[in-house]
C-alpha cells in the first residue's frame, strides 16, 4: 500500500472521527515509522479539519516523530532511579555500539537513540523502550548485544530472548521481560478476588446504595489528590448530560511510580469491574481506560480481558442480566506526556487534542469528555471500590488510620535491596517502609514523586496517610552517597520543565529559570539571593492552572527547607560586585573561531 492508502485505511478504521486522532496517529506511526509533514496534510484533508489541529497534537507528544527515528527506536529512561542504576554507562554503550549520539539516528538508519522520562520500571532500571517494548535491567553488555541484534535484523521477540517476567508478564499475549516484584501483597488490590462477584452484588442494589456504601467506607482517590470517591460519583450522578463517561486514569507518569502497571498486569478484571460499578452508580454507558504509551505492550492482553468479560456478560449489554444496564470499555493510549495524567488534560488527549489542562470549573463531573459528565478515577481507586462492595464497609474501615481507610499500594525504588510493590495499610511510617525494603544509609526519601516532598531522616517517623504524608504511592530512596542536588533535584526540575504544557507563564518560564539557577548553584556559582528567589517563586507558582506547575518547584523548595546546608555549602563567596557566572574568555570563543582572534 502507498502511504495515502495507508492513511485512508487507518482513518476509515476510526470512521473518520477527529476525536480519535490519537489512535489514528499512533496507528499511522506504527505503519509509517514517523509522521511527516505530508502525512499531517493528508490526515487533515481526510478528517476535514484544519492542518494546525493535526499539527498541534502531533507536536505535543514525545513519542510522535516528525522525522524517521530509526528502524529500531530506543527510548532510554533518563529518570533519577535509572541513573542510580547505571543508565549513564548503558547510554554510553548504546552510543558506542550504534555509532551515533542520543537524539540521533545511526548513519545506516537502523538504530535511533532517544531519551525519555520515567517509563514506570523504577524497580528494574536501567530500562528502555525499543519499538514500544520494555527492555528492563539493562547493562552495557546487554546494550551492545541489542544493537548487534538490531543490525542483524532481529525481531523484537528475538531481541527479548527468553526470560519473561513472572505472573502475567509471561502471558502469551504479553511476553514481557518485565517483573512484578510484588514484595508485600495486601488485602485490597492483591487480596482474594473472583471476577464478577462484585458486579453480581452491586446489581442487586440501587445506585444510591452503591454510592452510600462508597461514602461510608470513606474511599479516597489514589491518584494523588485523595478526593472522596463517593462524592465524586454523586456529583456525576446528579449532573445532567446525554451521555456519562467513566475514565480510568492509568497514565502513571509520576517518576518513581509503577504500581498501576503491576495492577493492570495482575488485576485488570478488578479495574474493569470497578469501572462497571462506577458506571452503575453514575449511570454511565461508556468507559475509557487511558493508559500511558509506555504500557502499550499490555494492549493485546487488556483487549483480551475485555473480550472475555464481554463473553461473561460482565461488560456489554444488560450486564449481569440487568435490563438496560449497558456499559462497555475501550482503551485509549497516550503518546508520552506526563501532564496527561491530570484529569482534564487526560480528557483533552482522549478527544484527540493536545494534552493541555482545562480551566476549572466546570469540573469533569459536570463537563468532561465531549462536554459530558465524566468520572475520572485512578486504577487503584477502582480496585478499592470492588473490594469495598464485596467485603463491606466495616472490613475496609478496620484498616488504616482515622482519615485514611484501607490499604495503599506503594511503589518503592532507589537505593534499597528490595524495590517493588508493597500493599500496606495506611499509617505505616517511612522508617517501617525503609526497613521492609532493605534500605540502609539513607540520606533522603522522595515521597509521592517529584511533585511530593523530599524528607530527611529526622522525619522518617512520619506516617503515610492523608493526614500526614499524603502520597500517590511512590517512595524513592536516596542513599547517603548520592549528590542530592545534582543527581535528584536537578533531574526532577528538568523533568518538570520538559513536561510543562506551556499554557501558564509561571510554569513555562520559571521552570526553565529555576533549572538554570539550580545548575549554577550546583556549579558553585550561585548566590544567597538565588536561593531566596527560588523560595519566593513558590507563591506565584500557585497561580498555575494545574498541579504540574503548582508543584514543579517542590523538588527545590522542599530540599531548601529540609537540606539547607546542601545549598549553603555550595554558594559562591567571591566579590559580590561581579557575577560569578560571567566568563569573558568563554564569551569570546565564537569570535575567536570566526576570526582567529585570541580570547584572553
Amino acid at each position, binding site marked *: 500500500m502507498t502511504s495515502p492508502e495507508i492513511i485512508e485505511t487507518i482513518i476509515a478504521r476510526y470512521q473518520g472521527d477527529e476525536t480519535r486522532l490519537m489512535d489514528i496517529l499512533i496507528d499511522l506511526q506504527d505503519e509509517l515509522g514517523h509522521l511527516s509533514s505530508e502525512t499531517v496534510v493528508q490526515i487533515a484533508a481526510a478528517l476535514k479539519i484544519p492542518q494546525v489541529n493535526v499539527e498541534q497534537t502531533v507536536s505535543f507528544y514525545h513519542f510522535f516523530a516528525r522525522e524517521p527515528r530509526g528502524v529500531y527506536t530506543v527510548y532510554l529512561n533518563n529518570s533519577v532511579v535509572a541513573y542510580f542504576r547505571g543508565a549513564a554507562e548503558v547510554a554510553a554503550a548504546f552510543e558506542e555500539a550504534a555509532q551515533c549520539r542520543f537524539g540521533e539516528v545511526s548513519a545506516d538508519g537502523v538504530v535511533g537513540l532517544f531519551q525519555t522520562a520515567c517509563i514506570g520500571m523504577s524497580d528494574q532500571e536501567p530500562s528502555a523502550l525499543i519499538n514500544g517494548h520494555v527492555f528492563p535491567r539493562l547493562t552495557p553488555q546487554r546494550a551492545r548485544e541489542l544493537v548487534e541484534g538490531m543490525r542483524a535484523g532481529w525481531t523484537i521477540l528475538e531481541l527479548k530472548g527468553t526470560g519473561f517476567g513472572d505472573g502475567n508478564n509471561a502471558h502469551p499475549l504479553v511476553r514481557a521481560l518485565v517483573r512484578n516484584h510484588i514484595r508485600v501483597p495486601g488485602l485490597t488490590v492483591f487480596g482474594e478476588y473472583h471476577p464478577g462477584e462484585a458486579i453480581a452484588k452491586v446489581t442487586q442494589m440501587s445506585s444510591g446504595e452503591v454510592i452510600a456504601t462508597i461514602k461510608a467506607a470513606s474511599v479516597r482517590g489514589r491518584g494523588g489528590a485523595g478526593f472522596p470517591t463517593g462524592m465524586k460519583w454523586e456529583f456525576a450522578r446528579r449532573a445532567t448530560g446525554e451521555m456519562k463517561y467513566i475514565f480510568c486514569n492509568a497514565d502513571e507518569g509520576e517518576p518513581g511510580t509503577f504500581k498501576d502497571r503491576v495492577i493492570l498486569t495482575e488485576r485488570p478484571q478488578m479495574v474493569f469491574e470497578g469501572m462497571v460499578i462506577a458506571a452503575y452508580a453514575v449511570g454511565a454507558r461508556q468507559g475509557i481506560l487511558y493508559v500511558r504509551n509506555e504500557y502499550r505492550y499490555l494492549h493485546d492482553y487488556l483487549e483480551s480481558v475485555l473480550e472475555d468479560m464481554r463473553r461473561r456478560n460482565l461488560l456489554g449489554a444488560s450486564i449481569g442480566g440487568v435490563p438496560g444496564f449497558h456499559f462497555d470499555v475501550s482503551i485509549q493510549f497516550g503518546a508520552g506526556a506526563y501532564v496527561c495524567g491530570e484529569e482534564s488534560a487526560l480528557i483533552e488527549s482522549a478527544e484527540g487534542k493536545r494534552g493541555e489542562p482545562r480551566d476549572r470549573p466546570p469540573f469533569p463531573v459536570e463537563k468532561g469528555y465531549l462536554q459530558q459528565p465524566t468520572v475520572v478515577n485512578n486504577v487503584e481507586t477502582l480496585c478499592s471500590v470492588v473490594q469495598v462492595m464485596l467485603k463491606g464497609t466495616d472490613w475496609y474501615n478496620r484498616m488504616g488510620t482515622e482519615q485514611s481507610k484501607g490499604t495503599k499500594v506503594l511503589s518503592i525504588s532507589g537505593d534499597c535491596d528490595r524495590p517493588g510493590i508493597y500493599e500496606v495499610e495506611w499509617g505505616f511510617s517511612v522508617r517501617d517502609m525503609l526497613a521492609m525494603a532493605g534500605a540502609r544509609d539513607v540520606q533522603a526519601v522522595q515521597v509521592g514523586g517529584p511533585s511530593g516532598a523530599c524528607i530527611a531522616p529526622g522525619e522518617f517517623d512520619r506516617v503515610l496517610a492523608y493526614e500526614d504524608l499524603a502520597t500517590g504511592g511512590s517512595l524513592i530512596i536516596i542513599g547517603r552517597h548520592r549528590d542530592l542536588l545534582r543527581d535528584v533535584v536537578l533531574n526532577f526540575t528538568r523533568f518538570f520543565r520538559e513536561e510543562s504544557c506551556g499554557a501558564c507563564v509561571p510554569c513555562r518560564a520559571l521552570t526553565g529559570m529555576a533549572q538554570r539557577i539550580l545548575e549554577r548553584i550546583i556549579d558553585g556559582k550561585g548566590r544567597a539571593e538565588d536561593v531566596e528567589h527560588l523560595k519566593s517563586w513558590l507563591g506565584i507558582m500557585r497561580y498555575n492552572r494545574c498541579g504540574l506547575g503548582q508543584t514543579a518547584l517542590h523538588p527545590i523548595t522542599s530540599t531548601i527547607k529540609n537540606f539547607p546546608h546542601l545549598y549553603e555549602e555550595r554558594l559562591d563567596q567571591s566579590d559580590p560586585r561581579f557575577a560569578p557566572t*560571567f566568563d569573558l574568555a568563554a*564569551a569570546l570563543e*565564537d569570535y575567536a573561531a570566526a*576570526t582567529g*582572534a585570541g580570547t584572553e
Partner: protein
Amino acid sequence: MSAGTPTGKKIVATTSLAGCFGCHMSFLDIDERLLDLIELVEFNKSPLDDIKTFTKDCDIGLIEGGCCNDENVHVLMEFRRRCKTLVALGECAIMGGLPAMRNTISLQECLDEAYRLGPTVADSNPGRIIPCDPDIPRILNRVYPCHEVVQIDYFLPGCPPNADLIWDALTSLLAGKELALEYRTFKYD
C-alpha cells in the same frame, strides 16, 4: 571608597555600552532641570562632559546598553569598581534590548550576514573580510544584560526611560529616598 566633592556634591558617571544613546538623549530631555542637577552633582566619566577615563571614585553610575563586546565588559567592570551605586538605565541595560535580538542566531551567522553574504556587502567589503584588529573590540557570543556581568543596584525601565522618570530616580537617589515606580511610568503601549 571615598566619593563626593569637598562641597558635598555627589559624583555621577554615565556610559552608553551596547545602546543607541537614546537613554542619554532622554536624560538630556530633563531640559532646564539640568541646571538644577549640576547644582547637586558633579559629573565624572561621561559623554556629557567628555571625560574619557575615571579621575575619581563616584557615587552613582548610570549604564545605558548591555554588553555586546569585550570593551563593554571592561567599561562596565570599571564602573562597578569605581561607583558605589550602579543603575541599569533602560531596556538594553536591563535585558539586552534590541541588540539581544541576535542572541538566537549564532555569531558566525551574524558576521557572515554582515560582512560576507549580505546584499550590501559587495561594494563595501570586496575582500569579504570579517574585521579583526587589536584596535577594535571583540564581539561576544551573545549580548549580555548588565546584571549578568556585574551586580546592578537599581533598574530603571523604559525604552528609553522618560526624562521625568530619570529625574525622579536621580533626585530620589541623591536624597536617599525610595522611589515609588508607578505603573504608568513604564507602560508604553
